[in-house]
């Protein structure tokens, strides 16, 4: 059984078909990349999976259960973590608090926990959550920044912090929307190794990225989106030479 399955998924915004009858599966344990020109509908696809948008047609299922139509927070709690193309950190809060918020679904004490904040059982959970958050920060090499304010981190570290925050949810599947955007080549290489390690811990990775070197070096499979339509899917070496893909990127006439 596939971990994630998009079944004939379409979304229209007025007259615009942003995602058009897409069938796609993400298999457990793989790194799948989604590429395509700007405005192809990649981020929209992530928003559909995470319930920020509801498909006009088609269904999305995760671990065999339909999730399309569910609220965003229940989809997250079911085990899908994500980052955003336009970084959406809790800017004025500490790095650690950002990750602790990511760990929200790992905790149980709620309002009653606030009333009993000093009770050993509440402090125990807080301690465990903090340890876990630091663990997640270590995965992206940011533990030493734990008590800095998120907004004060350099751009590349903010992107990594978003990944740590998503990992704190202990997701089965993590969606990364242009994780390498704005990074220099060295930072990209470091990130590539981090994503590989994350996959090695058993997290399935589905990412959107423009940098071809990054995508080719990392992905098990690649899917290509153009004007909302999936035009190709396959191994990196097949995608690299696929005439339709080259045409979508370089325009008609580029292929002889």
């Amino acid at each position, binding site marked *: 059984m596939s971990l994630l399955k998009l079944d004939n998924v379409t979304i229209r915004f007025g007259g615009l078909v942003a995602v058009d009858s897409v069938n796609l599966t993400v298999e457990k344990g793989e790194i799948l990349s989604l590429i395509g020109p700007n405005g192809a509908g990649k981020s929209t696809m992530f928003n559909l999976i*995470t319930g*920020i948008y509801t498909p006009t047609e088609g269904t999305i299922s995760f671990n065999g259960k339909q999730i399309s139509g569910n*609220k*965003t*927070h*229940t989809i*997250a*709690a079911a085990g899908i*973590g*994500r980052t*955003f193309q336009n970084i*959406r*950190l*809790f*800017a*004025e*809060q500490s790095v*650690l*608090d950002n990750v*602790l*918020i*990511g760990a*929200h*679904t790992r*905790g149980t*004490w*709620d*309002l009653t*926990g*606030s*009333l009993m*904040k*000093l009770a050993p059982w*509440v402090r125990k*959970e*807080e301690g465990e*959550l903090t340890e876990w958050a630091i663990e997640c920060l270590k995965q992206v090499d940011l*533990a*030493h920044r*734990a*008590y*800095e304010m998120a907004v004060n981190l350099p751009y590349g570290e903010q992107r990594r912090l978003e990944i740590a*925050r998503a990992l704190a*949810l202990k997701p089965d599947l993590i969606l990364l929307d242009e994780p390498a955007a704005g990074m220099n080549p060295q930072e990209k290489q470091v990130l590539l190794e981090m994503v590989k390690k994350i996959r090695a811990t058993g997290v399935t990775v589905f990412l959107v990225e423009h940098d071809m070197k990054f995508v080719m070096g990392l992905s098990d499979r690649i899917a290509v989106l153009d004007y909302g339509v999936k035009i190709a899917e396959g191994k990196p070496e097949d995608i690299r030479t696929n005439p339709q893909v080259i045409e979508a990127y370089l325009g008609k006439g580029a292929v002889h």
Partner: protein
Amino acid sequence: MGALQSIVAMVDPYVLQILVNIGIAIVLALGLNVITGITGQLSLGHAAFMSIGAFTSALITIKLGLPFGLNLLLSGIIAAAIGAAIGYPILRLTGDYLAICTLGFAEIVKVVFLNLDITNRALGLTVPPPKSPIPMPFYVWGVAILSIVFVCFMKESRFGRALKAIRDDEIAAEAMGINITRYKIQSFAIGSFLAGVGGGLYAHFLNYINPSDFGFLKSVDILSMMVLGGLGSIAGTVFGASVLAAAPEFLRFMAQYRMLVYGGLLVFMMVFRPNGLLGGVNFTDLVLRAIGRKPATAEINERHNKG
């Protein structure tokens, strides 16, 4: 209890009155701080929940004569229940729309109290003394201190983190698995609870309440206290409530211009100190430094640079 009475008797009644005003203001402003400062939902109708608490509490004393502690608890719970009920539909709105709805709701509450026989319509209610052996000033400050401790705890717990996440970015908060509707309603209920308790204290301290005491200007009063000290900052709220609750006593000669001053103050703060006078000051760090212990930041940096 006799000891408490004699302490109260020793203090100048005028000073005592200012102290009690400050204590009540702290409870009210902390309630608004939970809703607006910590959760980011702008409410312009906080005085409505205060009035619900005030009238409930007055009626409980008049009709049922329950002990004051139980009375305040019930008044708070009723204000919280109404807060949750009204919050359910309106907390889907954001920003200006939410603010306008809370404003409209507050006016409706006022009109309802002005027309209810049980609250004596426009004549208002005379409130008998509370049924409690503890003198009012101690009661007020006991409640104020409990409120401060509770909000401090809440802010730094899992529950409070969820509220702050909603304030900073609703979409990101949802993507972290936070049920934003539920948390917004709970936050609104907690803020209304504190407003209701504050209203109950107010009613029994003044011995007389009238629906028109709880209009828009009262809500702006409370809002100004929070903005002065700093949205979301608890120390700031205590500071703002203390200054603005005491100020009218010292500025009696210009009483009719008070709202003018508050309006100017709000504009000044928004422009020059949007985080409040005490916003952004980390008191835990300051205290730790003052007593010669390293703040948490330094400690974790050391721990992880070694390892």
